């Protein structure tokens, strides 16, 4: 694939992400009230993350980011061959964009209990973080967060849908 073309898409995606981040943040401050005061929402990655998307009702829309989701088997945090390949592409993008940090979100399908799935989501996010570090990405560019089964992108009770929800999602954050 043409390197310049990819770069162009990335820049466009970034402009889109930044714009989305701004608007959702404004909305957020109106909705959240006192609870969010001094909340440390200065972290830009949060405004483009799944929780911010869920707050504005946009979670589940097509993923247009430069970094791609990886998927897991049921009750597993093991990285399969496809996940490793995607992580290598994500690592390459991070090497090409050295000023960008990334938040890795761990997610689960809803066929488990809430607390166990929060723990499993943490393991899934950590698995990707450790692999990215092994591929040469600096540890301090990567943060992780688990959302357990709380933020599904697909609502049906089907294997296809569960498989989409069992994911690590990667949210880039500007320098």
């Amino acid at each position, binding site marked *: 694939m043409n390197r310049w073309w990819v770069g162009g898409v990335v820049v466009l995606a970034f402009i889109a992400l930044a714009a989305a981040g701004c608007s959702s943040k404004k909305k957020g401050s109106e909705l959240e009230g006192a609870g*969010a005061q001094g909340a*440390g929402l200065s972290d830009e990655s949060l405004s483009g993350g799944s929780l911010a998307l869920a707050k504005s*009702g946009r979670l589940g829309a097509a993923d247009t980011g430069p970094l791609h989701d990886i998927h897991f088997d049921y*009750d597993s945090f093991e990285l399969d061959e496809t996940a490793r390949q995607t992580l290598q592409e994500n690592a390459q993008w991070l090497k090409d964009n050295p000023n960008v940090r990334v938040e890795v979100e761990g997610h689960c399908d809803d066929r488990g*209990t809430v*607390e166990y799935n*929060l723990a499993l989501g943490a393991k899934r996010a950590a698995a990707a*973080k450790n692999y990215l570090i092994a591929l040469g990405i600096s540890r301090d560019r990567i943060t992780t*967060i688990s959302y*357990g089964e709380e933020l599904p992108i697909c609502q049906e009770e089907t294997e296809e849908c569960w498989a989409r929800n069992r994911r690590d999602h990667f949210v880039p954050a500007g320098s």
Partner: protein
Amino acid sequence: MRALPATFLTCWTIALATQAAAQVRSTIIGPGVKRYPIALSPLKDGAAGGASDPFTRTLGRDLELSGLFRIIPSDTYLENAQTSGVTAEDIDFANWSVIGALALVKGVAERHGDELSIEARLFDVAQHRQLTGKRFRGRADDEPRMANRFADEIIQYFTGERGPFDSQIAFLSTRGGRFKDVYVMTANSDDVRRITNENTLNLSPSWTADGRGLVVTSYRLGNPDLFSIALPRGAWSKLSSLRGLNLGGRWSPDGRRLAVTVEYDGNPEIALLNPDGSLLRRLTDHWAVDVSPSWSPDSQQLAFCSDRSGSPQIYVMAADGSGVRRVSTAGTYNTSPSWAPKGDRIAYASRIGGHFQIFTVKTDGSDARQVTNGPGSNEDPSWSPDGRYLVFSSTRRGAPKLYLTDVAGTNQVELTEGKGSDTSPAWSGWLE
């Protein structure tokens, strides 16, 4: 006398049942035994005058939920509650035996402004005799709570053990918004109050050791941090905000520590916090998932969930992290342990054929018993303060709602209804 403070509700025993009588009764009243027919005469109440009063209505709801009693319908009652007698000498028991009542409750209410006193008595219809009686004093608002306490007293008389209804249940619901928020209701599902309204994820509510507040994991600052919420006003204070999960803060029953799940290098482990939220010590050290600690009633041990054997299973360890042993033996996915207040059993959710069912097991791993059955998933068991009932969430009729069951599973009743999902129930201790 001046008005009483809101939470001040006093109670005197009018007459005591003998322990021997209670033991005899417990053999004829219990789960799986035919419900005991009881009549609940409306309060003799100068102010209310005949209509169904909150005390009698609440008492009926509690006794019905207990699974131990059958309430004889009030439209069959022969007496005028406002003019008939309220003591054993003055009651015409024939009026009650003829409609099939074996037990009878009668009471008198006195109201002076915001002050309320209720005198309630339980009678044996065949023997024409008072079994127990209580006098309650408080505010008008306390009327349902007086009924909850008298229901617990009636259950105590018949079974030898106090009933569970003078208590509350915290839970999560999406009834009011996009995300799960914390709600609190009475154990009989009345008086539902919304506690959080943050437009973010709030998870795993539990009660503080003194029952005056909640502990909840919330993403309100972005990270899943642990907070205390003081009741009734709902003021938040941060307990723990370590990087990553700060999950499932469970106060030890002695109020000295909190058990939590936190991450060490992305690995969820059980740890203890001091009451101020500072880290006291790490308890587990394993590459697998360790999560969902639940205290034994003596604060000496913890049950938890771990997938160290390759699948999620229930384990028990000492409160210093030593002596880890597996408790669940059957099934490939066992989570959400909840240690019974009597200490003898642990409830948990077990995945069978694609759905979860509630089980209990002795703490040594023997005698596992299935509590729920049938369609849908049944999850998140939490014990009543008397250890005879469990509240849990179930998808048996669609969206998850809360259900009450006795430990044997013979009497399962829907507690919540309406829109949204109701999950993660946490039953408090007794209110006082």
